[in-house]
């Protein structure tokens, strides 16, 4: 995508500090979220995904917040495990369009990751509620983005001239 600066790389903090997990409530505040990434991350120790008895059961307040889940590609601290890099890269949008896109992407990602969880935990009501919360927020953000920067997909009434074919397309970087 154009409009993004580099994802900043931060040097590692302490290696075995899991205290950040206690502070990882589901804060829906975007700015607070970004601050949370300054917390320590254990890079290599969390290997639940290879433990035979780990059933994946997770409660909403155990999850990463939206921003931190998104930059990690994983909403589930109990499955989070890093390779090579010592902390996830921040995403630093350079303008309003990129900022709005990052935000709606992050909420959409949170909803999607919970969706996969719910496929195998279909009776988990608290998680269904959280899914609904995140998908509502995503839809609001999509509407706000589209109002300003044009459609993300072809649906409903379109303006004239046909705005679907406007740049930028997602794979272009400048």
């Amino acid at each position, binding site marked *: *995508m*154009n409009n*993004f*600066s*580099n*994802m*900043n*790389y931060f040097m590692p903090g302490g290696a075995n500090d899991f205290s950040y997990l206690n502070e990882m409530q589901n804060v829906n505040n975007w700015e607070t979220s970004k601050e949370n990434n300054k917390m320590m991350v254990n890079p290599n120790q969390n290997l*639940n*995904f290879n433990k035979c008895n*780990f*059933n*994946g059961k997770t409660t909403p307040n155990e999850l990463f917040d939206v921003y931190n889940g*998104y*930059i*990690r*590609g*994983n909403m*589930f601290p109990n*499955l*989070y*495990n*890093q*390779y*090579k*890099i010592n902390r*996830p*890269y921040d*995403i630093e949008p350079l303008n309003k369009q*990129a900022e709005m*896109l*990052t935000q709606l*992407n992050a909420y959409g*990602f949170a909803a*999607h*990751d919970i*969706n*996969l*969880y719910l*496929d*195998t*935990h*279909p009776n988990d009501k608290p998680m269904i509620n959280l899914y609904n919360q995140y998908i509502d927020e995503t839809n609001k953000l999509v509407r706000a983005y589209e109002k300003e920067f044009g*459609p*993300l*997909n*072809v*649906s409903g009434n379109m303006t004239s001239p046909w705005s*679907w074919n406007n740049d930028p*397309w*997602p*794979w272009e*970087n*400048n």
Partner: protein
Amino acid sequence: MWKYEKKLQYPVNIRKKDLKMAKYILTQYGGPAGELAAAFQYLDQRYNMPDERGRALLTDIGTEELAHVEMISAMLYQLMKGASVEELKAAGLGENYATFGRSLFPSDSFGNPFNMAYIKVSGDYIADIESNMGAEQRARATYEHLMDLTNDPDVLGPLSFLREREIIHYQRFKELRDYYLKQKEKN
């Protein structure tokens, strides 16, 4: 049906051309543990799942893999953008250029075209889900190898994101497998 959304699942913004890296990453486009293979494998297996749980999970993960195909394509496109013929030759992409020019073509890093025989389908849903667990583990390992091959944060960011998705998918497939095994014990 599917509907296109005009965005990547996670931003790809690579500023530094790196043809060698493009050649390595090709394997995640059209190679045996690549995203294209994963997408087809999961979407194809849906028709032999015993209940809605498996059908839902395979649909959702298969769909996400299509978004990963697009991320990998964007990485390849940006890593090769503006390369001269001399540069392509020097990076071992001369053969690729001879046949495909500057188009993307799904192959592995050696240039072997994507092959549908990569797709594992057996008629046995437990065997299929277990092959998916293996596919996720192999893809995770491939992403780790790719991360070993670069120090560019623009490239490491998306690779790290994609690697993390393999971990999640592996876990969900494992949960599905365990659930079906328990169902079998009950009956």
